[in-house]
């Protein structure tokens, strides 16, 4: 089967407090191949900002305990992403802090 090229999705990312110190910037837009999840996003982050992943996903630590990711999606109540497998959707606004 020749499946069509996966369409990219765009998410908007904000960095707050210490995380902005790590990235040197406060916001950016990121494209990901569909289907995308939080773990894929962390891959991109780790590539751009080495040392990013361990802060959010410490080896042997508990995901999302000493840091947090808030997701705002399409006018719905925001929620914290606690599962690396959480799917991401086009237009999501993700705030890392």
């Amino acid at each position, binding site marked *: 089967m020749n499946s069509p090229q996966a369409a990219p999705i765009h998410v908007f990312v904000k960095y707050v407090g*210490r995380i902005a*110190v*790590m*990235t*040197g*910037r*406060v916001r950016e837009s990121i494209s990901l191949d569909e289907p995308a999840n939080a773990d894929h996003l962390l891959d991109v982050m780790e590539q751009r*900002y*080495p*040392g*990013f992943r361990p*802060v959010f996903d410490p080896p042997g630590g508990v995901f999302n305990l000493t840091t947090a990711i808030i997701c705002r999606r399409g006018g719905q109540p925001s929620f914290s992403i606690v599962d690396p497998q959480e799917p991401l959707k086009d237009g999501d606004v993700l705030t890392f802090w």
Partner: protein
Amino acid sequence: MSGLIKIAVVSNDLCSGCRGCETWCSFVLAKGQGFRPEESRIHIETDPQGVLNIPHINCLEECQLKHDGDPICVEMCPTGCLIYTDDEDLESKRALWEQARQDQPLFRLIVPWKYPYPWRPLKRDEL
């Protein structure tokens, strides 16, 4: 490190005026019986306009209360303004801090070697 090791101030700009050093030193001098910043080997002078805090250190003796090699005034200094080292190391650390605070405004508030997380220069053009 080779020279004489002593307590030094990295920069007055890094002193928050918290008086933690002063207060803990008084605890050492009072042999743990209480806190009395008036009786301390460090005094924090605040200038009349309130724009600067200046630590004055008057301590020649070995500290009675050390932790991981640092005297308690240095241990409790939250910004890293106080340092326990020799002159040579002090100079190189000062240079390191000067550069870091140009690159990343966070380091107006703490010395870079006390900051345990990864950091990058701030991209000011994107703000």
